[in-house]
């Protein structure tokens, strides 16, 4: 069975409730760039990698990403 796909916008939404849309957009773009992910549609493991990358950030950004990652795992 193919891995479910998730758009970059959905990953941003996972973070924007706590960080705001603009900051969430920025951290997702930066993390995707660092991981060499250029596509708009990600598979679930890529989305988790993006969140894992963001989760390394100290403070609220990292805590929010760890929380979002756990939520995404449950999907």
């Amino acid at each position, binding site marked *: 069975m193919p891995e479910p796909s998730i758009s970059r916008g959905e990953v941003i939404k996972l973070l924007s*409730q*706590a960080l*705001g*849309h603009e900051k969430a957009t920025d951290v997702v773009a930066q993390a995707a760039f660092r991981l060499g992910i250029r596509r708009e549609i990600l598979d679930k493991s890529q989305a988790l990698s993006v969140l894992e990358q963001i989760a390394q950030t100290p*403070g609220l950004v990292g*805590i929010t990403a760890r929380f979002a990652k756990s939520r995404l795992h449950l999907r």
Partner: protein
Amino acid sequence: MAESKVATAMAHGSATEAAEKLVATCRAELQGCEPALVMVFASTTQPLSELAPLVAASFPRSTVLGASTAGEFTEAGDAKHSAVMFALCGDYRIFAGMGTGLKASAEGAVAEALEGMPAQVVGFPHRTAILLLDPLSGSSEEATLTTAALMGFDLRLAGGAAGDDLALKCTHVSLGNRVIADGVVVANVFSKQPLGVGVCHGHEPHSAPLTVTRAEGGVVHEIDGRPAWEVWVEHTRDATSKLGFDPATLPESEVGGFFLRFEAGLSQGDAYKIRAPLFRTGPHSIAFACGIPEGSVIRITESEPARQIDSAKEAARRARAQVGDLPLAGAVVFDCICRNLILKDDFKTAIAGIHEELGNVPLAGFETYGEIALDAGDLSGFHNTTTVVLAFPK
């Protein structure tokens, strides 16, 4: 199954006088029933460090939680310099813990509070956590998300951030006879019926988008490359002049009230998450109740009084809806102090609206520096400018 029963009380005077009256009033209303949960919310006139141990000693078999406040209320009305009590009898299993060092590590403090807490109790399929915390730690959202992550994703979470009558110097939470600052208290309430949690705010953006350009944790130093305080004063000047004051000339003791009226909004697409500035640090910086990362885009928000009354009723409706068709026994309400600052004497109208929406059951609550509400599927749980209603079915 035993029917739930709620008693509420309000008292003034010293901590000793208030404790005696609160305990006597609730005991009389409960008619011999021993409460499973007691919550006390106290102004700085009845220091929690004095009040909580007296209340805990009076209810040795109950879980007794507490928070210092910026205002108190029951279904009978609101007051300042008072203490209120909420006591709940019924079929519940409640486990509570306390964690310290919230500022240094939200994850550490929450883990300490949750140590040894069971994840489930046979025969009690529903669980709701109550979280009380010190917002001056600047880690309120961090603590809320960590609590939800560690307790499991089916959790419904409600609570409030303690106050100190707008002094913004030191806020306290308590569990039993232990009273702490810079900490969290978590109570895990296992129940046979679901509890209801409703949240709503009535604020709207008032300024253009502003970018946080220098920040550390919960302290914002610069916005759009300029001192944060200067920007806040500039972008609220029109509104504050209509209200008859100039924030630039406010005495330090009134700055907290100004901030809590003009809070920051983070865009979530179709809505705004409100973040509360609490106090100035140094001449230029502003401390918030949770982390505000650099690069965050905020809008300064404000609200009309009518929207505050409507949003309070909406929060009550949402909590009511989560309980389904069951009649209610009572509710705890965590209500942002900003709403009292905006509504002034009409704040009682907002309480009456909540009371009516809940079917005129007893309620008690306090005016907070932040509110907590997170349902399964939510991705943020710390709020400002909201009313959070935690409803208990009969």
